């Protein structure tokens, strides 16, 4: 089933300048893994060396920040939209999260 993934400008070089990609999966993790299959290299930009999602990037399922849902294992279904948004400042602080 298809999930619409919104890609921020700084990553669009990897997606052939596309701002929206259809991907498959039933959790955020799976959708991102499918994204990596389609566009090799994108995963390394989204996850840190320890395999955690980079804390300066926010992920939203529809309009909900996945930090307040189930994180990477947040379920996702057909028709949902996953937005990858550079946090810049929002949500990450000097005390870390």
């Amino acid at each position, binding site marked *: 089933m298809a999930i619409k993934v919104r890609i921020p400008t700084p990553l669009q070089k990897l997606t052939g300048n596309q701002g929206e990609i259809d991907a498959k999966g039933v959790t955020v993790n799976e959708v991102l893994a499918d994204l990596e299959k389609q566009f090799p290299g994108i995963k390394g930009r989204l996850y840190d060396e320890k395999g955690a999602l980079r804390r300066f990037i926010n992920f939203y399922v529809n309009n909900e920040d996945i930090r307040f849902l189930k994180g990477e294992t947040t379920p996702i279904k057909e028709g949902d939209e996953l937005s990858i*948004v550079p946090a810049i400042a929002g949500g990450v602080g*000097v005390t870390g999260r």
Partner: protein
Amino acid sequence: MKIESLLEAVGKTPLVPIRHIGQEIKALHSGQVKIYAKLEYFNPGGSVKDRPAARMVQEGIRSGQLTKDKTILDATSGNTGIAYAWIGAALGYKVELVMPENVSLQRKEMILACGAKITYSSPMEGSDGAIRLVKKIAENKKDYFFPDQYNNPMNPQAHYDSTGVEIWEETKGQITHFVAGIGTSGTIMGTGRRLKTFNKKIQIIAVEPNDPLHGLEGLKHMASAIVPGIYKEKELDDKFQMATEPAYEICQRLAREEGLVVGHSSGAAMLAALKIAETLKEGLIVALFPDHGSRYLGHS
């Protein structure tokens, strides 16, 4: 201290030594190399951006381009917006800002508290999206004063006339290296230019994110961004690229070990200062810390 206008309180920020971080570096431990931080959060609006914003607005008034019937309009990723907002309120001008929707809530609230209006650009496009949108808004409208901080020579000039002189005097001419992040590049261009007039040998070192996708608010990855008109790369002696995570980590250390609660771009400047210190036998490095960390505490 009694002053007639809050604008008089802009600048003359403290320069403090970094005393604990970096002691594993021999030359820092021995005191042959020193790192000082210029704490720009002491400005009335809480950031270095008070300096250029005040100057651009004052120059607009002086030149007659900014009159009471006009609204100050510009693109910002936050700190310049806060500066325009309080300066506009203090001087009696309306302010309208274009900023990416994903700037922190604290920034938005400070701007709204001063009565300024915010138009949001796409969170997917970062500060370049705000630059593109403000140009559309400013086109063909006469009731706006558009300082255009990315291209206004008064932005670096503010630092040429204040920051550069302050650092030279505060270090009694001992400064050997100046380190600052690049956003509009006004800070590094103006301060660097002035320091070079005092001593050509002073090294001017810029810091930028190592990746177009980064979390160092206020900084620009030049190779992938709209390059500001005021940015002259040939005037820099060096440019360091910094990753986001180490900058976040050094911010935690600055808070815990030095009592300096500063923003992430300050962390990036601090990391660059440490890298420079490792290569020196003696010297005095000044790193500019643009703002306070409270703006980055987010929902944590």
